[in-house]
Every structure is written in C-alpha cells, then in structure tokens.
C-alpha cells in the first residue's frame, strides 16, 4: 500500500505522471474485470465455433466427428432457416423504423413546454421498464385477445368482426409489442440529445424565415443524426436476440411465421438438442452483430478522443 501513497500527485485522465509507473497493485485493480470478460468472450464463442464444425447431437451420442460445413448446409437447407432470417430482418427493420420515426417526432413534441410534461414523460418511458415476459403477456391477453381483448371489444362495439392477431398477423403482432417496448428507449435518447441543440440556432433559422418543416429537416434531424446512429446500433444488437416475446406469445408459430434467428437456435439447440446445427445458427447471429458492433465501437472511439 505504501508504494501507492508515496506516489507523486496524480492527475485525472491524460496526466503523464502515472503513465511510467506500472506496478503490481495497478495491474491487480484492472485484472479481474479484464480476465472475467476475456473468458466470457473467448470460451463460449470458441466452443460455438468448434461445435458448429462437428457432428454433435445430445440425443444421439453415436454421431460424432468433424463435419466440415455440413452443419451450415443443414441449417440453410432447413425449411425454417430462410423464414427465420427473413423474420429477423423484418422484425428488426420494422421496429427500428417505427421506434426512430415515432421517437423523433415524439422527442420534438416533448421538446416544447406543456402542462404536466414531466409526468407525461414518465408515462411515455414506462414500458421500457416492464420485463419482456410481462409486456408480451399484457398485449397477448388484455389487448389482442380475439374474444376478450380490448381491441376485440372496441371492434365489437363498432360492429366490426374480431381480429385474431396472433393467428392472422403473427409477425405484425410481435412487431407491435417490441416497438412498444423500444419506443421509450429511442424517445429517451433522442429527447436527451435534442436538449443539447442550441436554441439560438433554431431562433436564427426562424428569423431567416424557415418554416416548421425546414426547421425539422435542416436543423433538428442533422443534430439528431449521431443519436439516431446510436439508437440504431444498440437496438440492432438487442433486436437480434428478441426471444422472450416470441417464446411467451407464439412459440415461433403459426408454422414458422414468427421464428427468428434467436428462436431457431433455441429450438434447434435446447429443444431438439442438435448442438452442431444450433451452433452454426449462433455463429451467423454473431457475424451479423459484429458488423453492427464494428460501427458502434468506431463511433464511441471518436467520442473518447473528443473528451
């Protein structure tokens, strides 16, 4: 301990004094976190890669040996594979578009002052704190149930036929639920970012005769660009693994209508015990996520340098 106390005055980030004094204590402070995350990152991923190239089924231990790209072949030839890829992309794309477009408009709306705005803000962000299994069941039962749901009730009052949401529009139903969960996230980030917009810039634009649309597209949207980028990337990572909502509502059905990549890997690996093929699916998800992560980390690196 005495080593550390005798050190000369050490400044915050960027102070040169500390740089040339590496010692054991310093290393020990950092090491646990780094080692834990290193193991977490390398061990399971290496196992997934390894499994994806061998024949491995928990139900049939006799099958073994190197499989080459067989697992990937089986996976792509599986009848649920392409639907799963398409569903993953549709779900991700639709939720991204909905949350960002509505989130931006909502952020602009909430950038103005109105009565009880702070309380209203709390209500808007509330869905983000509801656990996914609860969100899914609220929507499935209370709102979308074809007989007792509120939508059915309203349609009935209007004399319209009931809609079997999860039977007829399964993917759309999932998209609605997930959008409801993630809209608060997009809103909160964009709303926060909008607060840092220079008011004088807006005023200057209005004095120069800019109308509301010009103000929105030439001042507000460019200002939000960076925040929108962050929302897209973070949501993409999470939306790639949407699972609980599907698990509790449709279980991937009817047919493969709501099976996404995450649910496919679950059903191949945990339900059918086909480790090899499920791992191949996992690797595909990792590759997709890494493409996104590359851009996110690059952007954050720029941010750190700007500090």
């Amino acid at each position, binding site marked *: 301990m005495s080593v550390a106390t005798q050190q000369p*005055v*050490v*400044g*915050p*980030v960027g*102070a040169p004094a*500390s*740089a040339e004094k590496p010692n054991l204590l310093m290393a*020990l*402070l*950092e090491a*646990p976190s*780094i080692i*834990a*995350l290193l193991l977490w990152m390398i*061990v*399971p*991923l290496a196992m997934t890669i390894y499994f994806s190239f061998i024949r491995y089924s928990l139900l049939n231990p006799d099958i073994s040996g190197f499989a080459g790209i067989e697992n990937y072949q089986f996976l792509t030839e599986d009848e649920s594979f392409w639907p799963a890829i398409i569903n993953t992309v549709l779900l991700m794309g639709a939720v991204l578009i909905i949350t960002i477009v509505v989130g931006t408009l909502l952020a602009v*709306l909430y950038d*103005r002052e*109105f009565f009880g705005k702070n309380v209203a803000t*709390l*209500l808007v962000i*509330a869905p*983000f*704190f*509801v*656990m*996914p*299994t*609860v969100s*899914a069941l*609220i929507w*499935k*039962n*209370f709102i979308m149930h074809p007989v*007792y749901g509120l939508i059915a009730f309203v349609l009935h009052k209007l004399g319209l036929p009931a809609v079997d949401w999860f039977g007829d529009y399964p993917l759309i139903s999932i998209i609605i639920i997930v959008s*409801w969960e993630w809209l608060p996230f997009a809103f*909160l980030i964009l709303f*926060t970012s909008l607060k840092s917009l220079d008011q004088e810039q807006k005023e200057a634009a209005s004095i120069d005769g800019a109308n509301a649309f010009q103000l929105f597209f030439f001042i507000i949207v460019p200002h939000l660009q*960076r*925040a929108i980028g*962050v929302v897209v990337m*973070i949501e993409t990572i999470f939306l*790639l693994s949407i*699972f*609980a909502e599907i*698990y*509790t509502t449709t279980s991937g059905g009817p047919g493969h209508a709501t099976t996404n990549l*995450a649910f496919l890997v679950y059903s191949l690996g945990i339900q059918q015990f086909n*480790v090899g093929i499920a791992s191949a699916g996992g*690797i595909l998800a*990792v590759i997709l*996520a890494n493409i*996104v992560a590359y851009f996110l980390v690059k952007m*954050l*690196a720029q*941010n*750190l*340098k700007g500090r």
Partner: protein
Amino acid sequence: MKKYGTLIFGIVGWVIALIMFFPIFWMAITAFKTEQGAYSPDLIFVPTLESFKDVFARSNYLLFVMNSIYVSIGSTLVCFLFAIPAAYKMSFFPTPKTQGRLLWMLSTKMMPAVGVLVPIYLLFRSFGLLDNLFGLIVIYTLMNLPIAVWMSYTYFCEIPAAILEAGRIDGATLWEELWYLLRPMCLPGLSSTGLILIIFAWNEAFWSINLTSANAAPLTAFIASYSSPEGLFWAKLSAASLLAVAPIMVLGWLTQKQLVQGLTFGAVK
C-alpha cells in the same frame, strides 16, 4: 395563437403518453378484479385483493421474488467488486492502453446472447449450474460488467483531481483518501449505476428462461409460465406482474437522467 399551440401540443403529448402507458394501467386495474371480472373491460368494479392472495397461496411466488432480488442485487454487487477497482485505475492512472481496453470491454456487450446459448447451456449442464442462482448471478455479472466499468469510469473522470491532490498534500493515506474524499464524491454516480444494473438484471429474460426452471427461476421466467393455455388466469397474472414490475419502474423513473448515459455508454448526454 401561441397559446393555442401550447394547448394543442399539450393535448397531443398527453394523448400519446396515455396510450403508451395504457397497457400497464390496464394490467394494474385487472390485478384488482376478480378472475371472472378480469374478462370484461369494465372500468367500474369493486376492487379486491383476492388475486394477490391467490398468487401467494397457489404458487411459490415469494420464492421467485426472492430469486429476482438475489440475482439482481447479487450480480450488481459482484459487478461493483470487479468494476470499481478497474474504473478507479483507468480514470486516475490511465495508460496509453486504457482507451483500447475500455472499448474492448464494451465490445463484449455486442455479442448476441443467442450466439453463446448452446455452449453456456452445455457448460452449465456439466457443472450442475442449470436452475442454480449462482449460475445466473455469474451470467448477469458478466452481462453487466462492461456497463458497470464504463459508467463508473465516466463518474470517476468527472471528479476533480485537485481535491484528491489537496488531501494527499495534507497527509491523507490512500485509504483515507478513498474513504473520505473519493467515496462521498462518487457515491451519487455509483448509486445510479447500481440502480441501472439492478434494472437490467431484474428484467433479463433470455438467460432466465433458458437456464432456470423451478428452483432458481426469477420473476421473468415465472411470468413466462403464465403463457401456457392452462395458466390463463388473467387477474392472477396481472397481480403477479404488477408486483414484479412496479418496484423496478419506480427505480427506472428515479434514474431517468443517468439512464441515457448508461444505455449509450456516454455517447449521448
């Protein structure tokens, strides 16, 4: 003209807020209905606590609540145990490698859970960690560790080094410096970090559904069991959900401001 504008925007803003909150409101209302009453969309009814009693009587509800508490608080404490020393080192004694390490830590968060589901499941199976609280705490700790380090680092960086300096000049030992100077200054930041970590762990559903069943299931996994057609008791589902959601929503509201920093790793302030 401007007055009307404010009024119209206020009304639109409130209508949207109420629509967003409506499903939660409806769940809260249904929790106080009887099981028969739960199927009718009446707003006027005699509130009853019957469903809450049933939830506690018919299921091991308290066990799942305790599991959620153990797992979220346990993982948060372990996270801090790992993250605070690392963040302290990184912010007060940075080396040229520090930035790279921070970004690398963050990049571990980018791995989709589904990519490692199969090996984690198999590892847990062979180590007897399936349906085990300790196993779940390990996963949640690793899941939240990058956020914990990143947020603590951000808060440490905001502390003026001159104060620590002054303490050292006055002859404070390292421990006095940490306890009397650093601790009070970083406590607000670290407590909001803690709240965010608790929220994330509390609401996590992918791992809890896949890795636990009867004994170690937290609330997310327990509520999922209501999805089976036999488990369709709406009033009880609402009561169980309300109790599971309400405390964490209050925490979420309290941390609203720090939440953005935590969620975007400081990219948006």
